[in-house]
């Protein structure tokens, strides 16, 4: 077990290094961003001085090695637009993104499992067909379009939910202010609903289809037939025997799910004015704030890799046949 974890951590370091390299090269392919941070009327000397201050006058490999050195020390440089440590700027926005992602995951899980189970139990009926048709639409609708439609009809037309904005829950919680976090919770939920639905619909639909196919496979197994033959009520057969075994592919998917939802927040946070990392990255790319984009990408990569490792470990716990090593 421990040797497996160690091996995975070493692999993860390789993955993160690869991510840093690709991100670094992609960001520098656009050229030197110095011009965006000097006045239009700056002289050639002033431009050169700013370039040197920002470190963009050095050869690319030197810049990359310097970046890696900083990464080891936890110093990802200063944001070019905010003039403060890039990691700090990203971490300030992270609680808002985490709230949105967790809420979206909750919606995806809460709705996909019952829908997938019902669909599998009603296989071939209009109920099954309807659920799968809706799921297909859910996978086809772009999140930005859905977000704008929700704003238009639910926020503006019906006036049921706030159109944009955010009330923090996790930020005060991380600062140890439980009372504020709890007090904010009921006010925060209405703000969460539309953006979370926008980014979760794809996952919800995909997971519903996954649960359905997994359930169909399990329901045809001998032990399910045996359970039925023993007179176990249908509910017990489905929940205790079938669903438990149909979980495995869903759990695997959940690990990737978080990363997928994180990628979705870039557009959705912008549409709903959600003050999270996604919107920050969107602006940082537009402003060519290289340290800020790198800090955000590294944070997301660490999360993604860490969660996948966690899922693999969980996999072994859920299924005793799986042996790690």
């Amino acid at each position, binding site marked *: 077990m421990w040797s497996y974890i160690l091996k995975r951590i070493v692999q993860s370091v390789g993955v993160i290094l690869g991510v840093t390299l690709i991100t670094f090269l992609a960001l520098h392919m656009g050229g030197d961003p110095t011009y965006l*941070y000097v006045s*239009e*009327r700056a*002289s050639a000397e002033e431009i050169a001085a700013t370039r040197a201050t920002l470190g963009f006058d050095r050869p690319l490999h030197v810049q990359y090695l310097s970046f890696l050195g900083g990464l080891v020390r936890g110093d990802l440089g200063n944001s070019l637009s905010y*003039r403060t440590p890039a990691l700090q700027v990203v971490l300030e926005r992270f609680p808002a993104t985490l709230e949105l992602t967790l809420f979206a995951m909750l919606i995806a899980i809460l709705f996909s499992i019952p829908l997938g189970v019902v669909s599998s139990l009603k296989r071939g009926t209009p109920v099954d067909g309807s659920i799968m048709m809706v799921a297909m639409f859910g996978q086809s609708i772009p999140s930005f379009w859905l977000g704008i439609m929700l704003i238009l009809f639910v926020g503006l037309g019906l006036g049921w939910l*706030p159109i*944009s904005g955010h009330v923090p829950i996790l930020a005060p919680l991380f600062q140890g202010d439980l009372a504020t976090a709890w007090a904010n919770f009921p006010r925060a*939920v209405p703000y969460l609903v539309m953006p979370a639905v926008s980014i979760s619909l794809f996952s919800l639909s995909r997971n519903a289809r996954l649960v359905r196919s997994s359930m169909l496979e399990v329901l045809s197994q001998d032990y399910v037939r045996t359970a039925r033959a023993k007179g176990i009520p249908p509910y017990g057969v489905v929940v205790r025997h079938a669903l438990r075994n149909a979980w495995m592919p869903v759990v695997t998917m959940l690990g990737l799910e978080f990363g997928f939802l994180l990628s979705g927040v870039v557009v959705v946070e912008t549409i709903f004015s959600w003050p999270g990392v996604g919107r920050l990255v969107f602006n940082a790319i*537009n402003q060519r704030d290289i340290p800020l984009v790198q800090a955000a990408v590294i944070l997301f990569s660490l999360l993604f890799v860490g969660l996948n490792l966690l899922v693999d470990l969980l996999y072994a716990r859920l299924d005793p046949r799986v042996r790690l090593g």
Partner: protein
Amino acid sequence: MNTRTLLLPLLCALSVAAAQAPDDTTLVVAQTTDATTFDPAEIGDRASANIADHLWGTLLEITPEGEIIPYLAESYEVSDDGTELSFTLREGLTCHDGEALTAEDVAYTFQRAADPENGFTGNTPGFVLTSIGYQDARADDELTATVVMNQPNAIAPGLLAEVYIHCKDSYEAMSLEAASTNPIGSGPYRFVEWIRDDRVVLEKVEDFPLVESTFQTLVWRAIPEASTRSAELIAGNVDVVAGVSPDQQDAINNSGAATVIPVSGTRRIYVGFNFKPEFAEASDGGAAIQETAVRVALQYAVDVPTICETLLGTQCERATGLVNPPNDNPNLEPYPYDPEMAEQLLDEAGYPRGDDGVRFSLTLQSPNGRYLNDANVALAVGQYLSDIGVETTVEPMDFASVYVPLIREHDAGPLFLLGSGGGLWSALYDMTDLATPESGTNYTEWQNPEWFAGWERLAQAEGEAEQRTIINEMLEVFYNDPPWLMLYFQPDFYGVSSRLDWEPRRDEHIDVTNAALASN
């Protein structure tokens, strides 16, 4: 905690979810982006500056009509040799921490911004101080501060109206990092809170002597998506929205909750002709545009009013040069849309249509998404030019990563679309884009000797009348030997709530100190 305890507040919250409309003492403004910093010396972007304009006072102020009037300073004098501007402060001014605002604070404001150790690149050190040739600032007495420049500068007063005056003691006590998030102002509103990427809240300074504002609280929200801003305006949650998209005008105007007010902005949108020899050598079109007759002919080929009406959603008058009205040359008429004239002039210039109908070919580079409908405007211009036999290929580009380096190195072209910020308070301010042949902002590398000799004549001019005559002559030179294919002054669209009585300015500044609740 049982389920009911959890659900009840949630249901209550949902039922009041849409009730976010501001009360009568609060004004909410939505901008496209959030502020990036609140260090007065580091502020450089318009979103930050709009908020900062309410936090800090400036020595002088520019009115919406472009007049320079006293503000924190009650008067100023220019030294005999023109290199020193001495400002006399009003008595009784204070900063928001209670410290008295004196000449020493004014001198400190300039010295702090210019200090290379601070590494500031904001508007004050990066633009104002470099433009005026700043040398030093000093306090002559309690209320008199002097700014020293390396040479006389006619537009220095207007430029200095952009410098946010702040108090020495509080800023000396703060680190740069603390100063970027804890503004201690000297203007009509004080800082309350900044939730990054969400909102900035300001509170009225009750005893501020220079402005009588109506609203107790100002909330500046950052809402990047245009349709979301419009929805918030229609829902009544926001009072003023900047950057309304032309396609959303009807929805807002028909809502009954708000109206869209278009203003002719001060940003000059033009197509530059690049005169670098590399372009002349690289293509027949690059060589053709070196000739004045060709550049004049191309002016007649483009129907600018139609571009405004169809692509920008408003009517506009074509520019006659690089100076914003009403400071432009009143004797010049915009080039009319006359494709026959364009063809005739090109024939006369020795560029007849070939067998394939093409006279010569050009590439028009353009940013995509930087200015209002920029790429589509470039495509329209390209089509107009193609219609008269100038085969034009339009290349829309990402602004930040590709276009800015090309422009700043003067490598965009041979045709390139650009927008350049201007002002209303002085013709000279707009003209300084072309202050010298080597100016960084002379993106076309235009070398007209008559134009650049004009600057020397201006330096010798005695009195405003003579100066105005020279300016008009220079603008005529620009008109007759155009380095730009002149288009329009970019219209700006503001969405304004029906509950509000407020007029937007032309210069992209959002000043809501004069806003009030509508009387009916």
